[in-house]
């Protein structure tokens, strides 16, 4: 892989196999086997033959409708979902903030969850202990909430903590899946600044967002995904434009229709 690339995706396809009729239990499996039935499955192709290079220090935006395969792609880059075909090469330490949020334990305090989140993403105990205060400060929760159980948080506060953990780990590659909507205007500004800082340090960011203005503001380039295909790639303004037109009209531009 060339030096200047952070992520190289070559002819990537990802398929999910879904069991249609029965629950996955031993009982059902035995019943089926005794009747000589087969499991009925459906294959969903979430990402189809996608090839893409992301250079170090760039910010890539991904736009597309629900079910386009954006989250699947992000999970594959993070090494969580294995490719069905093709290959992904990643150069650098990855930090993720994906759609579901971290596996936060609601009974524990925000501070405990910061430690747990840091350890889960691969920091050593010493590293995360050194950073806990910084992360807590960045999240800037109102009076004392950081030491309260997470179940007492509003969704905005929850999002702030998750975001703070992800961006303060000094990742080489930061993957954000619909994570920027967290927090109010002032927190949003803070997170934008933090991301610009990360870019200035030549770190790489991939953003999935439905806030198209964000994509315009932050990204160097963007791609538009639709039903597993990458329809277009280019300057964010151009991509956002095309995508908005599609949203307006509801049909694909004629030159892209046969994909």
């Amino acid at each position, binding site marked *: 892989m060339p030096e200047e690339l952070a992520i190289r995706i070559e002819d990537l396809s990802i398929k999910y196999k879904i069991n249609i009729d029965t629950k996955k239990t031993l009982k059902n499996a035995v019943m089926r086997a005794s009747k000589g039935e087969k499991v009925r499955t459906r294959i969903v192709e979430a990402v189809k033959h996608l090839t893409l290079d992301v250079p170090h220090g760039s910010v890539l935006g991904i736009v597309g409708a629900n079910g386009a395969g954006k989250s699947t792609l992000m*999970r594959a880059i993070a090494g969580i979902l294995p490719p069905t075909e093709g290959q992904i090469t990643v150069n650098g330490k990855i930090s993720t903030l994906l759609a579901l949020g971290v596996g936060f334990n609601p009974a*524990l305090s925000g501070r405990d969850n910061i430690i747990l989140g840091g350890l*889960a993403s691969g920091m050593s105990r010493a590293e995360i202990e050194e950073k806990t205060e910084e992360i807590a400060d960045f999240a800037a929760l109102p009076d004392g909430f950081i030491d309260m159980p997470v179940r007492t948080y509003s969704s905005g506060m929850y999002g702030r903590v998750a975001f703070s953990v992800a961006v303060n780990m000094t990742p*080489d590659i930061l993957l954000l899946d619909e994570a920027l909507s967290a927090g109010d205007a002032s927190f949003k500004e803070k997170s934008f600044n933090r991301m610009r800082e990360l870019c200035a340090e030549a770190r790489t960011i991939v953003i999935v967002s439905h806030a198209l203005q964000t994509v315009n503001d932050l990204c160097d380039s963007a791609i538009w995904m639709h039903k597993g295909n990458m329809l277009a790639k280019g300057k964010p303004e151009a991509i956002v434009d095309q995508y908005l037109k599609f949203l307006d009209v509801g049909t694909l531009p004629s030159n892209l229709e046969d994909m």
Partner: protein
Amino acid sequence: MANPKTNFAPAIQVFKPHRASLPPLIPYLKEFWRRRAFAIELSRFADKAEYLDSKLGKVWLVMNPLLLAFVYFLLVTVIRGGSTEKSGLSTLAHILIGLFTFYFASNSINGGALSITAGGRLILNQAFPRALLPLSSSISAFWQFLPTLPVYILVVVIGKLFFPHTQIPGLRLSYLWAPFIILCVGITGYGMGLLFATMNVYFRDTNKLLSYITRIWLYSSPVLWRPEILHGWHKIFLYINPLGPSLASTSDVWIEGRTPSLGMLVGSIVWAFLAVLIGGYFFISRERDFAVRI
């Protein structure tokens, strides 16, 4: 490129399609070892979350096997038609230490079996060696097991005050074998936890099946009966049971006050290895599938 201060995963990673075969093991095990703190803290925090509002819950962890041991003791004594004063205490002690040890293994297996299906969000959002989750369950099981040892010692000490002629030994050198045997039990439990965790991803009712298996397993282990009652070729029942040798050794060390036989020690080690090798093979060769199936 990588931040020099951090010692994170290998800088360049390649993700490719895979068959049901093992990933490169050396990097996997390195990463597993590097992230061991995560498993330790996860069990500590799970424990903290569980007993945050109820200190009594922790007492119950010890009370539960203790009460169960008394029930089994009564049953065994009744079935046998009463007991002499001399053998009564040693029967109770044998059941106690056997049950505590058995529970250590079975808690680690049951917890491990659920750890993957229960860790859904974590698995969908972070990439890490999944074998850390069952390890975290085993560590929890160990922390539950540890306080039962002083309870055992307390019961024996009090018992010895009332029945000074009991055969149960006082302080003996043979106790030095105990940590080793506990380690074997822990490793066996972890290995089988890996195996059942994998099964539970594919068949979600595995843990129900497991509760039956555990019960049958308990009755066929030398917990409610002494290993000495098996003679000649019947001894084979001790060896084909993954916990047989280590539970027989437990009885030797704590009740008879002697060094376990070589056969039992070797048996304990062999089962510990087999459990981790087999469980580890199934788990690690399939763990890349977990995120898709959860």
